[in-house]
């Protein structure tokens, strides 16, 4: 190897190391908040590991994380959250690692009906209690002790039910999905369709993509090709935001109603303007919060685990301002 090349390699190495140090530095502030506060609450001193299918960059999961960390502070427990970034196999691996770390309890979001059965049983065999949060395997047997969260189909139905007042028999709605086939999309759209069927509204699903330029173009194209559309009922936050913007952009405020999920930056203003009629808040903070509380109580009082429905918050013009304030605090 030439001297010059060695020089370059070392230069790049220095660059990488220093930039990663910089990033760690940037992240420390956040990390400090996770450190268990012995002073907080009862100071139980338990250690829990939570394995999520989500990605650290998803605002939804960031709020779940906030709920977990807050509960950890209140109960004086150490909470470690691992993300698999949507990779089921990786999530099983993370679960294995969690088991060998020997925590006092494990929470897991179960996004596959069979993939996690074995590894959850393994944890239980070792005496580590496991409960599921956010996503559950409700249709096939699974050894997890309880589920903390909302049922996706019920959540979708709730949106449809809320939107019924803005639609009438013979109307048509489109259901854009960021990733058709993902379990949340399948179940929420099924729930929406149930509610629309009740009042005789026709529905069509749209593969909207998950990149904003593409999503914008596809939703606009749909409205162009289907001028009979009276509503856009979204299963995810990204399309909810884009749909509101598209309707405003095309001046269809009085013709097309929008409903969906989450409060991304442009969704709040769209609710205030009356373009987006309502969004469902899954209350992710509570999903994280109660998971930790449940695990702590199971250890503390040897209580039996039980399911907790974290509810379905409806956000519309009546409460959007106060919810937005809480969004800023990462509670909603």
């Amino acid at each position: 190897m030439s001297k010059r090349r060695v020089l370059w390699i070392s230069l790049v190495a220095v660059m990488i190391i220093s930039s990663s140090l910089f990033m760690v530095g940037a992240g420390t502030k956040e990390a400090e908040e996770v450190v268990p506060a012995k002073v907080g609450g009862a100071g139980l001193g338990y250690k829990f590991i939570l394995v999520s299918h989500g990605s650290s960059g998803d605002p939804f999961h960031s709020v779940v994380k906030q709920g977990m960390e807050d509960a950890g502070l209140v109960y004086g427990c150490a909470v470690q959250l691992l993300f698999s970034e949507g990779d089921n196999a990786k999530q099983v691996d993370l679960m294995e690692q969690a088991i060998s770390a020997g925590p006092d309890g494990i929470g897991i979001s179960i996004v596959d009906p069979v993939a996690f059965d074995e590894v959850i049983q393994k944890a239980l065999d070792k005496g580590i209690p496991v409960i599921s949060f956010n996503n559950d395997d409700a249709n096939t047997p699974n050894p997890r002790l309880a589920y903390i969260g909302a049922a996706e189909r019920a959540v979708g139905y709730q949106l449809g039910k809320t939107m019924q007042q803005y639609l009438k028999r013979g109307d048509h709605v489109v259901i854009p999905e960021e990733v058709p086939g993902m379990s949340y999309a399948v179940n929420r759209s099924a729930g929406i369709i149930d509610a629309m069927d009740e009042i005789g509204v026709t529905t069509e699903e749209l593969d909207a993509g998950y990149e904003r330029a593409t999503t914008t173009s596809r939703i606009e194209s749909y409205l162009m090709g289907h001028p009979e559309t009276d509503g856009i009922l979204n299963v995810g936050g990204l399309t909810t935001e884009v749909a509101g913007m598209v309707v405003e952009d095309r001046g269809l405020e009085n013709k097309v109603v929008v409903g969906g999920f989450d409060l991304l930056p442009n969704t709040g203003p769209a609710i205030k303007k009356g373009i987006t009629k309502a969004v469902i808040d899954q209350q992710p903070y509570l999903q994280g919060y109660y998971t930790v509380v449940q695990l702590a109580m199971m250890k503390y009082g040897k209580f039996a685990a039980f399911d907790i429905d974290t509810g379905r918050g409806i956000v519309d013009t009546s409460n959007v301002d106060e919810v937005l304030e809480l969004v800023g605090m990462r509670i909603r």
Partner: protein
Amino acid sequence: MSKVQKKTKHRTGNLKKVLRYKDISIVIITIALFTIFTLVNKKFLTKENLFIIVKTTPELGIIAIGMTMLIISGEFDLSVGSTFAFAPFIMASLSERMGLHPVFALIMGIIVGVGIGFINGIITTKVGIPSFITTLGTMMAWRGAVLLASAGFPQAFQRDLPVARLFAGRLSGFPVQFIWFIVFAIIMWIILENTRFGNWTYVTGGNRNASVALGIPVDRVKIINFMIIGGLAALAGSIQVFRMGSAYSNAGLGMELQAIGATVIGGTMLTGGSGTIIGTIMGTIIIFSVENIIILSGAPAFWFRTFVGVIIIVAVSAHVLIQGRRD
């Protein structure tokens, strides 16, 4: 009589010459597709519908222009989607959190993009790692960085600032970003076709050893092309921020493949050494208009991707047939 003969001969000669010209077949295919699409659905060729296509193509198209130059020089960049999120996030943060003037914030964002390109270029050329691997690594690294910096929460950016309107506003209804797309396409076309650097970009990708033998600084050529695509990805991401009024940590997901797709549909060879900017513009427009026509015509959700895939393969096959295959 002989005069007439001569004239027709001249004409067919010209036609051949025109067909031989490297950009013409993609233009023919685009026109053919637009004709077919109009026959399929007469709404396709309305001003209103074309505006839909024109509004969103620039975000991908600007990246695809940079990708074209980089692929011609013989390298790839998979990190553009992450740069598309990271650099504008820096811009939005500097402007909104630190109160920097939005124009300076935009300039800083573009400098960050150029810097990302520089790092990609240095690692690829000086350390000697294939750019596919280098940029796969930096793709993850910068996505991680933007996640860390944002904690997943979008960073707001005022949509009605003059700079935002300059890049993503409307000019009597027409989306300004498309004008910028064309402006950058023309600049890059001039650079690629009419400057020494452009010629070096072609020959570096076409035959690296020959270029080295003739004293062309191939590493420098590649690094500069990495920097160009980094800067363009930052600009494209900023345009999306101006349009949406927010910088998102998950922006630009999957854009690297779309950009490579647009480039290849436009006739650029993945092996390097040949390709054109005009082809890439057409490639980008084809991607968005194919999606548009399929949705306009009411294809069911789960068949959608299949239709897009089939039409793209058909279009590229026609391209190969017209132009003749080159190895």
